């Protein structure tokens, strides 16, 4: 088995790589370390190289001097320990696979062995799969693409801006409130529950009413028939809170006579 015979008469890659004709033909899966860059540009990996050798040079994938290859690889790995070791590993793995296949081929075969049991079948399957993907990649590369060969209509139009007010969600509001509290360190003082919020809402409502009506009779603030007890209580708490904060004045001319509320400001 001699690789020289396999490659006799072939000139490797009639195309030039980096403007230079490639001096040496890859006779096996060994890459001379000094030619690493060139080979890496030419081949995408051991599968690619193997495929090239098979398709272009009718190389039998087993017709490779395994012992010599292994020696070459070990020297290669030594040299490449510092850089690009992972690349060496891929080629090394491939040669290991070939050696394994070869050793299995050399074992005496039982007569009844089926074609599918050929140890080379898996490698051939991978090679053909890779070959199909390689061609698919070339085809995708050649297809017209937007930004290169396809030009999409994009005429101009007058941009009309419709001014809309900012949107505010409940979450935004709560977030803002939390920020306020964080900064003011008011956590201890202002733990608000729903009930207190209701009180504050009623305080605003009463004030708003006092703005238009000036004088409101106390009992008119309460709708005994329609408001449930909780609402009546909240409303009453609101009146007390308003009085406490000095926001309303509560007056009564005589005992048991009507009680009136008026905004403090409206004297």
């Amino acid at each position, binding site marked *: 088995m001699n690789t020289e015979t396999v490659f006799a008469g072939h000139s490797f890659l009639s195309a030039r790589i980096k403007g230079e004709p490639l001096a040496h033909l890859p006779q096996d899966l060994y890459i001379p370390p000094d030619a690493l860059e060139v080979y890496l540009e030419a081949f995408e990996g051991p599968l690619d190289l193997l495929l090239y050798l098979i398709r272009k040079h009718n190389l039998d994938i087993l017709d490779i001097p395994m012992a010599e290859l292994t020696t070459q690889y070990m020297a290669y790995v030594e040299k490449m320990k510092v850089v690009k070791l992972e690349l060496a590993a891929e080629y090394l793995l491939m040669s290991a696979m070939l050696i394994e296949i070869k050793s299995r081929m050399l074992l005496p075969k039982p007569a009844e062995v089926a074609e599918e049991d050929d140890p080379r079948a898996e490698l051939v399957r991978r090679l053909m799969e890779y070959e199909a993907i390689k061609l698919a990649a070339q085809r995708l590369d050649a297809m017209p693409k937007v930004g290169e060969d396809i030009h999409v209509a994009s005429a101009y139009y007058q941009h009309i801006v419709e001014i809309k007010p900012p949107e505010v969600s*409940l979450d935004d*509001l709560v977030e*803002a409130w*939390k920020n306020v509290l964080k900064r003011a360190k008011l956590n201890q003082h202002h733990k608000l529950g*729903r*009930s207190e919020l209701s009180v504050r809402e009623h*305080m605003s409502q009463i004030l*708003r009413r006092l703005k238009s009506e000036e004088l409101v009779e106390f009992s008119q603030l309460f709708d005994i028939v329609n408001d449930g007890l*909780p609402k009546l209580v909240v409303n009453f708490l609101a009146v007390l809170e308003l009085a406490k904060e*000095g926001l309303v004045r509560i007056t009564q001319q005589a005992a048991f006579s009507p009680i009136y509320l008026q905004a403090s400001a409206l004297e």
Partner: protein
Amino acid sequence: MREPENITEMKQILEAALLTAGQPLSLDDMLKLFAGRMERATLRMLLDELKADWGQENSDKTVELVQVASGYRFQAKPQFSEFIARLNPEKQPKYSRAVMETLAIIAYRQPVTRGDIEQIRGVAVNPNVIRQLQERDWIDVVGQREVPGRPSLYATTKHFLDDLNLRSLAELPPYEDFAQSEIPLDS
């Protein structure tokens, strides 16, 4: 490379280029289309023809060729702009932090004066902040506090509740513990 065979094809190349350019094309740009094999005068003539073909008076055309400072471009006739604008609704601006915090304080602590807000936030309140919220009809003045200067008392409006999809302030999340169950109070 192939070159256009006649003036009709040249005009078509010009039209296709202008429709797809995405920006105005200058005369120099357009000359590049023909690899220098066109006179400026011819180009101008073709542009005039295209302008006429696609002009405002041709009611079946939806775009027209117009000349702007940096060259020529096709643009949608004005009557279509408002519809096209619907495809890209302008991103709405956000309220500043000052506006949001002021709103939150008024919502949670109402009725409050500007002084209250300033005390809580620790910074002066820009009158513009209050104005923005009033213009939105989210807050209004519900009275004055009886202290020197009689400052206005602000509260949130019904409109604010509507916009935030709340029935009452009691539906605002109590800020300190959202998980804590509370006795619901109808208001």
